């Protein structure tokens, strides 16, 4: 009995020594997990303590990029916030990207004038590692003093502020990325402004952005929407999307006909 207790004590001591000897890890950047995008940034990812502006078209991939950064923060057990100006962020998608929803605070202010103030408060508090400020469809344009305040708040709180703005937005951050879907299956990123590395561009398959989601990107013309008044629906690829399961699939042992019992029962 005593020997067992001593062994357990020794094991605990060993664990304590290991913990004390292990180097402390400090988070300096938020990596998206997509090497091509991370390499674009001089710091190898979205830098903490800075403002990064992600500008681009309506469905260019800005939100997914921001969510990748938020997922990186929540993976490190940090907190993140999403100031959702248009109120359009879809949490099931964020969960699919890898965001821990328990660590993501969603803020949807009713008044657009409160958006920047909210992001400032969150970043300045020091409690959040990543704060996304979504100004899409809100009509809010950052003024220069507001940009300066955001930079100061990010520096003070050690947070990375991601400003999602439409293409015509005013540059807020020291790092600005232009995102655009150049072709149906190609995503283009360009560092417009940065401490170093401005003007770097990268084009990568759109599927790379959604690699975790494994979205299939078919070739043009593979399937079509038919006019319901002219022709019946053509069901394409539904079965493969369900991985061979579901009501369309036949599951061995369950969906085959059962043998008749009449003979065994003597009927």
């Amino acid at each position: 009995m005593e020997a067992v207790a001593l062994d357990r004590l020794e094991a605990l001591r060993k664990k304590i020594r290991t913990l004390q000897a292990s180097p402390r890890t400090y988070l300096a950047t938020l990596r998206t997990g997509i090497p091509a995008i991370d390499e674009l940034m001089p710091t190898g990812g979205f830098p903490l303590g800075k403002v990064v502006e992600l500008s681009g078209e309506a469905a260019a991939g800005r939100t997914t990029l921001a969510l990748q950064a938020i997922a990186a923060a929540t993976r490190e057990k940090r907190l993140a916030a999403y100031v959702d100006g248009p109120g359009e962020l879809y949490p099931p998608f964020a969960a699919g990207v890898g965001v821990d929803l328990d660590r993501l605070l969603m803020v949807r202010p009713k008044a657009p004038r409160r958006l920047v103030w909210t992001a400032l408060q969150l970043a300045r508090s020091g409690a959040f590692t990543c704060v996304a400020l979504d100004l899409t469809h809100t009509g809010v344009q950052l003024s220069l003093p507001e940009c300066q305040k955001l930079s100061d708040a990010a520096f003070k709180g050690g947070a990375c502020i991601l400003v999602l703005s439409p293409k015509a937005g005013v540059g807020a951050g020291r790092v600005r990325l232009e995102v655009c879907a150049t072709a149906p299956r190609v995503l283009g990123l360009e560092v417009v402004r940065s401490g170093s590395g401005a003007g770097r561009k990268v084009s990568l398959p759109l599927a790379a952005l959604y690699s975790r989601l494994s979205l299939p990107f078919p070739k043009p013309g593979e399937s079509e929407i038919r006019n319901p008044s002219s022709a019946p629906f053509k069901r394409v690829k539904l079965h493969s999307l369900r991985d061979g399961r579901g009501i369309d699939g036949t599951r061995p042992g369950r969906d085959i006909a059962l043998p008749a019992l009449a003979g065994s029962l003597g009927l």
Partner: protein
Amino acid sequence: MRALYLHLPRFPIQRRVVETPSLAGKPIVLSEEKRNQRKVAFASTAALTAGVRAGMTVTAATALIPSLEEFPFRMEEERNALLSLGEALLSIAPAFQLSAPDGLWLDASAAALCRGEEGLGRRALETCAGLGYRAQAALASQLFTARAVARDGAVGVKVVGSTEGASALSPLPLGNQGFGGSQLNVLRSWGLSTLGEVAALPPGAVVARMGLEGLRIHRLSRGEDDALLVPTAPAEAFEEHLALDWPAESLEPLLFALKTILDRLCARLAGRNRAAVRLSLVLRLSDGGQQRVELVLSQPSTRAKLLLDLAKNRISDLALSAPVAELRIQVEESCEDRGHQQVLGEMPQQHDALDVVLSRLSSALGAESLFAAEVDCVHRPERAYHPKPFRPPTPERGILKGTTEAQALQGPAESLERPARFFARPAPLKMEWSGQGGAVCVRLLGQRRKALVVTGPERLCGDWWEEVAYSRDYYRVHFEGLGPAWIYRDERDGQFYLQGLFD
């Protein structure tokens, strides 16, 4: 059984000064109505020095000190305050018994956990000092002995051994021991002034002259007390209130009063090993109205400073119609306090910062504007998640790290084909069809866009048992000059709608 008696000299006066620090050092009295006369029940040190005594009429006391301030003495309030103190002391003792209005007994059976009986006494005094009270403590094997020694013979902490009761009581005066007035007069008429002198009398002679009451006094004087500690049941609800003597018109006096009751509330929570999760603060106004403020914590806490910061953020923006006359705070939801083990390099102020910023935002934007989302196993896209209060999980620390099962971060399978931006009100789309019936163009975001790639359909239908049944065919369409969009055809009207964007 060993018991500790905690004596708080003139506790009602101490409590009044703690609640209103501007009264410190001033002559004040607490009066009660007796035979249609207001008589002094308790007096401050300044009043006692000037000659005011308990039992004196307030008129006579005012004649001695014209600047004397008088407040009503309410036994129920003092009892409640003592009850709060007793609950706060439950962190060091398993049970307590009230001895209103100025003391309480603690069960000292767990003194070994406080480094002995003297350590227990010191911890009790420290807890009192933390709440602003001055106290004296004595430990003995009999309740009477502990109380008598704490009231008259103790400075700080005094420990009376199990066989030293009689000797410890011997020099103590007869008065102030809770004996009846008639018995006390009889003993004094015999020329007795201390408990030791009573103990020296032959018991038979005392019984012959004073009856059973005399025998009881004699036994108590000899350190023989059979009374057992009867634990006082703590209050079910964690609630504190404070009536302000002068209605508060500005934030500063209000915050001070709030700090007083929060200190008391948090001490009670700590004593019961509970932590507050949600509180409600009610400000009663002098015009009869009231204002209610909800305080929601992201993580359970018992720290008064944090709660005060949260309350400050919430009430500083309030526009009140009249001064505040009374404060009432109640813990609406509490949980077990599991403590907080910090590691090297950890900054505890970060935890406070989260609650403070959430409180500030909640006050400015409304509590419904801040939430965390939880995904539901529902096929209907607009019901696939619901908001919940933002309470991030407590991080694992030190040696416990990695002991619990890691949570799966990957979302449910249903999220694979869902857009990043979801429109609560889907925009109708005007489709243009080719000669063969295929979709070619659509008017979207003010432009005519060509559909380049189409995936689908994914048929979702259900809720047929409700009035809002749905049946939709979803497609992911990559439009020209735009990223992928999520559109659907509603089976009910045959129209196409834009549901979201894969931004």
